[in-house]
């Protein structure tokens, strides 16, 4: 992975020196391959707001760890109270396959659930499960449509069209900050190629070479509903025990 990232960076550097901007694929690959932490622990607040300004808040404690080709994630739901101590665990494999389980305190058992629900919205928010994951660059074709400066950030503008014609979005357009390889803004277009949602980066934190997006806002422009996702108490590369990502901890939660 590191070699691949190095080669990509060298190619872009060489291309830039030669006066050639990087291709759309190279930009998205650099965004995808940005250094990430081996572990991440954080509190996630999700604020859902409708067109009248009514808000609903979901609070989650999340743990993530990389296990040599498998990324494991555990989410413990803290609020609202009717779903308190519900836990969700996801194992993502390098080949793109996933295993997912949910623990419902009322049922007192861990249930395997289908991972084939990526187009479903996560907890009533404006994010689908797929929006929250790392979409592999090979799943779309990418082309640079221009460059722009937004809020002082110089960005490449990349249009991505899914290879799978049945995918929920007809295309996305991403504004990628040139010197950081992070998406600053992204637009999602529906099947009729009308603008559906806008994702904006509100805040991020740098932990050495690792950049963590700490606040993003997704705005559904078609029904005037938005969701803010805010990470707090972020700890990167903390020593999280391997057994955090087991049935035992799903049932035990934060106890």
């Amino acid at each position: 992975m590191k070699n691949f990232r190095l080669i990509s960076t060298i190619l872009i550097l060489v291309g830039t020196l030669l006066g050639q901007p990087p291709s759309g694929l190279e930009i998205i690959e650099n965004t995808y391959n940005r250094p990430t932490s081996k572990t991440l622990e954080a509190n996630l607040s999700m604020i859902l707001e409708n067109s009248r300004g009514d808000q609903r808040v979901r609070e989650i404690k999340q743990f993530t760890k990389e296990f040599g080709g498998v990324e494991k994630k555990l989410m413990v739901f803290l609020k609202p109270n009717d779903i308190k101590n519900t836990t969700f665990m996801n194992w993502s494999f390098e080949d793109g396959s996933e295993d997912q389980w949910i623990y419902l305190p009322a049922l007192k058992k861990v249930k395997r659930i289908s991972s084939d629900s990526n187009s479903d919205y996560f907890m009533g928010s404006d994010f689908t499960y797929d929006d929250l994951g790392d979409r592999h660059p090979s799943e779309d074709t990418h082309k640079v449509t221009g460059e722009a400066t937004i809020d002082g950030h110089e960005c490449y503008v990349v249009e991505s069209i899914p290879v799978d014609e049945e995918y929920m979005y007809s295309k996305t357009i991403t504004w990628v900050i040139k010197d950081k390889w992070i998406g600053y803004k992204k637009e999602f277009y529906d099947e009729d190629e009308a603008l559906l949602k806008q994702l904006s980066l509100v805040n991020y934190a740098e932990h050495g070479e690792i950049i963590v997006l700490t606040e993003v806002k997704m705005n559904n422009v078609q029904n005037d509903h938005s969701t803010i996702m805010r990470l707090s108490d972020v700890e990167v590369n903390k020593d999280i025990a391997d057994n955090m990502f087991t049935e035992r901890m799903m049932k035990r939660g934060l106890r």
Partner: protein
Amino acid sequence: MFKRLLIITLVYSSLFGQVEFGGYVRSYVGLRTGGDQEYAIIQNTLDLTLEGGSGSVSYFANPTIYQSPGSELDFDLSEIYLDMYFNNTDIRIGRQQIIWGKGDGVFITDIVSPKDLSEFLLADFDEIRTGITALKLNQYIGDQTFEFVYIPTFTASVFADTSSIWSRTPTFPVPITTDYSEKDIPATLENSEVFAKFSGILPFMDYEIMAGYMWDDDPSMHITPTFYGSPPALTEVTLAPQHHRLSVGGGSFSTELAGMVLRGEGAYYQGKQFLALNAMSYPIDLIEKDYFHYLLGLDFSIGSTRFSTQFIQQAIMGYDDMIVQEDAMNTLTFLTNRTFLRETLTAQLFAYVGLNKSDALIRPTLSYDLADGFEILGGANIFVKDADIADGDDPGQFGYYDDNDMLYMKVKYSF
């Protein structure tokens, strides 16, 4: 005493903040749609969870208070236990609910905690099981777990009392006397129950293998007839419910196939007492047989609508024609649900279908989250009986309650 203890705990906890509180307040009203349209249930509930601890120890208690007009307050302590956490071992001691298996709404390997059937199968998931006083030990080996459960004293399933609309007692054309003298199992070491399970959640498949030496949670009815005259005629029967020992071995699995979750669960029961006809064709004998109980289930989605269906069979081994129950009892369950308005509105339909007797229980519900943690749920329980069943014939476990169709509403606030 219980009330006083609860109040002391609440006051102490409030003052010193050492307990984390949770729970709900619920108001539940159910109206029978047939006959005199009487209220089948009017109930207000306060369910509290109290938990706390530090580091490697914790505790949990779940007292519940039920209030119904014209009745005494009903207290229940469904769970109260202590946890000890070690490196790869957890120990839980106290009254607890233990849930096993991969089936939904079916009790095949999920037999450690007995059931509360005082409302038939209509209670919420967390209320349909009763707690048992047990020692539970979990030993973790990577993603696999060995679980051992020791239950020193037997706890039977709870059934509706005879005045309830959910009561089901055998009928005879003669007077019945009930003898409860043999119903209770003395609390001795010899009478304790043990269960063990080895399970794992692995990439692509979860599995459980279990075994148990237990008492049958459902009592067998020992029936003693009294005959008089010549030729002898049945004049009276005495019913004596008794629990019998069962040995059980089984397992379950779930795996994802092409975007669907396939589930299976099965158990072999040794030593079950089945009601049988005597030589005069009265259903008063008991015959001991083994049986196999299993299910296959599939969970899948079409668009944003989720579906789950299960086929369940209970098959008696070495069947005897005198046994009242058929040699194979087949049941289907079907569940579909879909959420709307950003998961604040949920429409659901759940059904049990008895294939042998063509009976069913259909449960449509609609729930709306008025605010976070505040839910209003309206639903119906529709019991279906085969119209061709003759009077006196068994209409099936769902058809039996054909007169108990009900509309109900629950308003619940979780805190």
